[in-house]
């Protein structure tokens, strides 16, 4: 099941490899089918998932797999290493509440990404092969429970992303692509050392060998007392935690490691921006929840305050930067920096409300930001510019577009009734309830106002009022006497066309539904997050 959902896109990629590159439509359809099949599988997993099982780690007495579901565990590599015992790597997939939501999100976003890639005309074959590779890698990261496997998938994402930005990107794409690549690689290579260190510090309770299994690693009882990352080796544990955290924080991206994001977004084609903002950023925080925190609970507990401060900086700093942007896409990029700050804040709270809020925020930010980038892409396709000042009064001429933009924008500024609000509210509730992050939360609340400020301001400048004199479009009075809008060299429908609606409407529906009734998602994650919180709370406090 999980293997299938992970490797479906790669299979599709191989099929595409066989298709002659002239058959663009077939290529697109193949990858669309793969994405849809992935979606179906995701739904099946969602239906079959038992929310009562927490996962996270194995209970001391219980099964070594922990209460993970859809587990696939196959020995992969087993080397004898002389005096060092043996090197055991397992093909170990599993799902718990933290990953199941992310699986659904990934399937959804990659399907929408394929639809949005329909307009790509340059080297379609190569594009979709890389796209499918990327999709597989992302999905793999979310289901891998073996650190080695996770690392492989994690690194596997970089190269396709590099090319997708670098080949199909905007004018400044080389810069953005290599920047993305170097930044993220810089973050992840050190993860490699920590991974090895952890391997030699952890013993699989069943086999007695060292293991890469995250399930075993998440249980402090399995650590050798004075191994390099054993409980006695406090300093190295702190360093390892910091290294991992930076590695993941670069993906999040957390201030001050965020500068790759605006460039990457501005240069990347729309579908890649959607994937990047919708899924890749989540990998950072997912990694924190899956690996960084549960493996070093005491360090996490010691550094909650710092993480919270960084979260607050992200929130407010991102909002301020967004306020100053002229390029709409850059504004959205900074807005997602700001929104990922909420996730960090919620994680820093270290209590259930905060963590559930953070995870839910990851999901919602995925859907909402995907929507935002799609909408930016829509207007960019038509006007070939993203300068906010080049528009004005669009609401009169593109009512449907304006309506959906309004929903998306308000979802992004956390309006009640839309999903973003609940997650942000939970994050604040959690952050305020924990003594550690109380004052940080009180500061971060400002983010709500500034978030509203930049979103409403851009909304007003682009959609309200009248056409600006230097706008990127003309007005012409149509036959019916009403004014119509006319974009230069744009032949298609002025307002949203069918394809764009099929991409956007599901997201809108999800956003509204989950804003009114969040339990379908929250119900799946609560038990896991509660378990995680329990694991993270040191025995002293527990």
């Amino acid at each position, binding site marked *: 099941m999980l293997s299938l959902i992970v490797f479906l896109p790669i299979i599709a990629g191989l099929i595409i490899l066989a298709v002659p590159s002239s058959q663009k439509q077939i290529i697109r359809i193949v990858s669309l089918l793969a994405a849809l099949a992935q979606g179906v599988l995701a739904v099946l997993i969602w239906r079959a998932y038992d929310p009562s099982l927490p996962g996270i780690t194995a209970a001391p007495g219980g099964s070594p797999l922990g209460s993970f579901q859809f587990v696939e565990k196959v020995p992969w590599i087993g080397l004898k290493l002389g005096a060092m015992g043996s090197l055991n790597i397992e093909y170990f997939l599993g799902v718990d509440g933290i990953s199941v939501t992310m699986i659904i999100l990934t399937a959804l976003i990659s399907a929408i990404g394929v639809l949005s890639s329909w307009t790509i005309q340059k080297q379609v074959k190569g594009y979709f092969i890389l796209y499918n590779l990327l999709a597989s890698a992302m999905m793999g990261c979310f289901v891998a429970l073996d650190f080695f496997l996770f690392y492989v998938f994690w690194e596997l994402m970089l190269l396709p992303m590099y090319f997708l930005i670098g080949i199909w990107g905007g004018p400044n794409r080389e810069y953005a692509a290599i920047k993305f690549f170097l930044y993220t690689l810089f973050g992840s290579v050190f993860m490699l050392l920590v991974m090895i260190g952890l391997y030699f510090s952890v013993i699989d309770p069943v086999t007695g060998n060292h293991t890469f299994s995250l399930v075993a690693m998440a249980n402090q009882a399995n650590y050798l007392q004075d191994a390099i990352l054993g409980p006695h080796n406090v300093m190295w544990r702190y360093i390892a935690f910091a290294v991992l955290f930076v590695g993941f924080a670069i993906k999040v991206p957390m201030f001050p490691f965020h*500068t*790759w994001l605006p460039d990457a977004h501005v240069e990347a084609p729309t579908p890649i921006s959607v994937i990047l903002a919708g899924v890749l950023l989540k990998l950072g925080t997912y990694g924190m929840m899956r690996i960084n925190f549960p493996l070093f609970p005491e360090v996490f507990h010691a550094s909650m305050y710092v993480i919270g401060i960084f979260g607050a900086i992200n929130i407010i700093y991102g909002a301020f930067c967004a306020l100053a942007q002229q390029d709409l896409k850059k504004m959205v990029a900074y807005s997602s920096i700001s929104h990922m700050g909420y996730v960090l804040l919620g994680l820093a709270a270290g209590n259930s409300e905060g963590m559930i809020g953070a995870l839910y925020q990851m999901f919602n930010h995925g859907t909402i930001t995907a929507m935002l980038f799609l909408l930016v892409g829509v207007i960019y396709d038509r006007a070939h510019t993203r300068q906010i000042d080049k528009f004005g009064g669009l609401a009169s001429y593109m009512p449907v577009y304006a309506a959906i933009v309004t929903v998306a924008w308000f979802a992004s500024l956390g309006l009640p009734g839309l999903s973003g609000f609940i997650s942000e509210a939970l994050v604040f509730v959690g952050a305020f*309830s924990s003594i550690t992050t109380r004052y940080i939360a009180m500061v971060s609340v400002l983010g*709500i106002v500034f978030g509203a400020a930049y979103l409403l301001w851009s909304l007003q400048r682009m959609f309200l009022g009248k056409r600006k004199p230097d706008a990127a479009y003309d007005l012409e009075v149509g036959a019916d006497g009403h004014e119509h809008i006319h974009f230069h060299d744009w032949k298609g429908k002025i307002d949203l066309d069918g394809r764009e609606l099929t991409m956007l409407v599901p997201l809108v529906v999800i956003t509204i539904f989950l804003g009114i009734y969040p339990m379908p998602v929250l119900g799946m994650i609560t038990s896991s997050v509660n378990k995680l919180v329990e694991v993270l709370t040191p025995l002293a406090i527990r």
Partner: protein
Amino acid sequence: MHSLIQLSIVVLLLPLLSFVILIFFNRRLPRRGDFVGVGILGTAFALSAYIFWTVIVQTYDPAFRVAWDFTWIDLGQVPGIGPLQIKMGIVIDNLTAIMLAMVTLISLLVHLYSTGYMAGDKNYGRYYAFLGIFTFSMLGIVLSDNLFSIYIFWELVGLSSYLLIGFFFEKDSAADAQKKAFLANRVGDIGMWLGILILYSQFHTFSFTEIYANLAAGKFAMSNAWLTAAGLLLFMGCVGKSAQFPLHIWLPDAMEGPTPVSALIHAATMVAAGVYFVARIFVVLTPDALHVIAFIGAFTAFMAATIAITQNDIKRVLAYSTVSQLGYMVLGLGVGAYSAALFHLVTHAFFKACLFLGSGAIIHAMHHEQDMRWMGGLRKHMPWTFATFTLATLALAGLPLTSGFMSKDAILAGAIGFATAEGGGVYYLIPVLGFFSAMLTAFYMGRQIWLVFFGESRTHLKPADDHHSAHHAHSTHDTHNDDHHAAHEVHEVSWNMRAPLVILAALSVFFVYSPNPLDGAQGWFMKMIQTPPTVVGSYQSAPSSEKLAVGSQQSATEGENSALSTQHSALSEQHSAPEAEHSALSTQHSALKESTQHSALTNERQAEIAHASHAAHFPAIYISSIMVILGITLAGIVYVFRIIDPDKTAEAIRPLYLFSLNKWYWDEIYDATFIRGSMLISKMLSWFDTNIIDGIVNGVALIVKKVAFANNSFDKYVVDGLVNFTAFSVNTTGAVLRKLQTGKVQTYVVMLLAVVFGYFVFYFTRLIY
């Protein structure tokens, strides 16, 4: 589930239904589906009228209360807390019933009125949809039984007000106004949100009853300052919504919206929601918090009144008078005149709605002329409007025999009582400001009446270009009255706009509320709405009473552990099984009663204030009546008999005049400080982001470009932040090291030997020493 609850749910959802229908199908429906909106609101009103009847008239019980809730978000077994849910619920008590009826009634009337006023607008259907969602959210606030859902609906009314203010979004002024309104509200909301968080972080619940019960039981772990802070932060929500100083700036601009909207949202209901919310949380407000609230209310009332005097736009005058009246209500709550404040809320809602709709009628008749200077002599042309408008004006000014008289005097009496109870001194400032504002109110309303209805028409006096631009301004958004642009004769509005005026005017007369025109306290309203016992008595902040409070608290907690436990079991059981709610409710009441025992201190204070205000009843009547008459006559003197020339006076006191005309320069101040400030910061930060973070050393990037002569041009790009620095150092080291590769084999040999020899020497020395 109690039948009333079911009814109220229907009432709540009906407007939402209207919204959904109209937003999607208005273009397919005949008349853009306005009848859907009106019909649905009619039904909603009928139902809420029934609720009102059952609650107020039939069960004539001040303590009436039914509640119901369900688990909205289940957070499961939270470590350290146990099972944790976020509940949504509905509570119906007298206040709710009254608000329910009021909101639906005014909303219905506005719907009806709009069929005339907005007819033919190109977004007519969308307009009704927005009205629907507004009504829905407003009812949500009224019905909520917990802070969280109130916050949700709070934001939603903010949204709908945003949408409706910006209904003519093609006007830049409207777009600005809607943004301003939303942001100002947001500022208030974050305060409110923090207040909610403070309470939640203590009790892990949002429900009023549970929070109050816990507070009463003295479970509030943080310091008392936090409790006061919580109260004030919650009050910030009211400051935002009810346009209290310092967040009052948005309300006057909100008049950019269609006039019926101003009547519904920005006069009668939404802005009053702030007051309603403060009433809901009244019991958690510590005396300190109450003092602050009282002063803010008094100041707002006074400031707004002074501004209203000089405004020329008919709607702006009303807007500032609204701010001022809201100030009265807040003042009332602050001084503890709980029921009086709410009484004023209701009465004000009716007559102010009447006034706005009347002004709407005038504007409609005057072809969207809003400047009073160019009106006059409308009395003859629009008798109905004149009559209703005048009646409402009298009520607003607070002349006897009107509803406004009773409510306002109750508040002022409360203020006096409060001042005496608090031992006079600075506290007398509050009643004084109150009375003075009463006079100002009478004055500017008189001015308005005289300017609009009496004298001769001054339409022709209007400068031509101004005139034309006015036409242009609205011709962009109102295409519907282009046809009778040419004809300039003013005529009475049609029945569907007249009827609401009449109904609302009728509701501004005293006997609706009380048999005795001089004393609202004898009316059903103030009997039904009674000051709830505070639950924060044991958290006295005055150091003198601290020990006593703590002592009483401890005794209380010791004495009542059993009671509390029962109460909690009852609570939990209620959540588990809604049908057991009545028993639960009774226990909650008992809990509240217990709380009154050990929070005796504050309740004594309340009683004292109540007594003093009762004593101050008649003085208040006399003073205010005098003030009002004074104001009206003054207005008459100035604007009718022209004994004092207003322009000359204005010249005489020019600075004051300008100060008032420019609204105390608040907008300018805010623009200079907050708005420009934050824009500046954002500019700075984004510069910082692009130039500092994104290239930790700009100079470095520069050098690298220089160094990278041998590298291809793209090299200079890979220069970024930390990566940047590495790239730089790496590149330079590379640039140096590669020079070693001279291409001459002999130098290679030399270096080889040098290395060997050097290492040898190194070890040699290490061996020797």
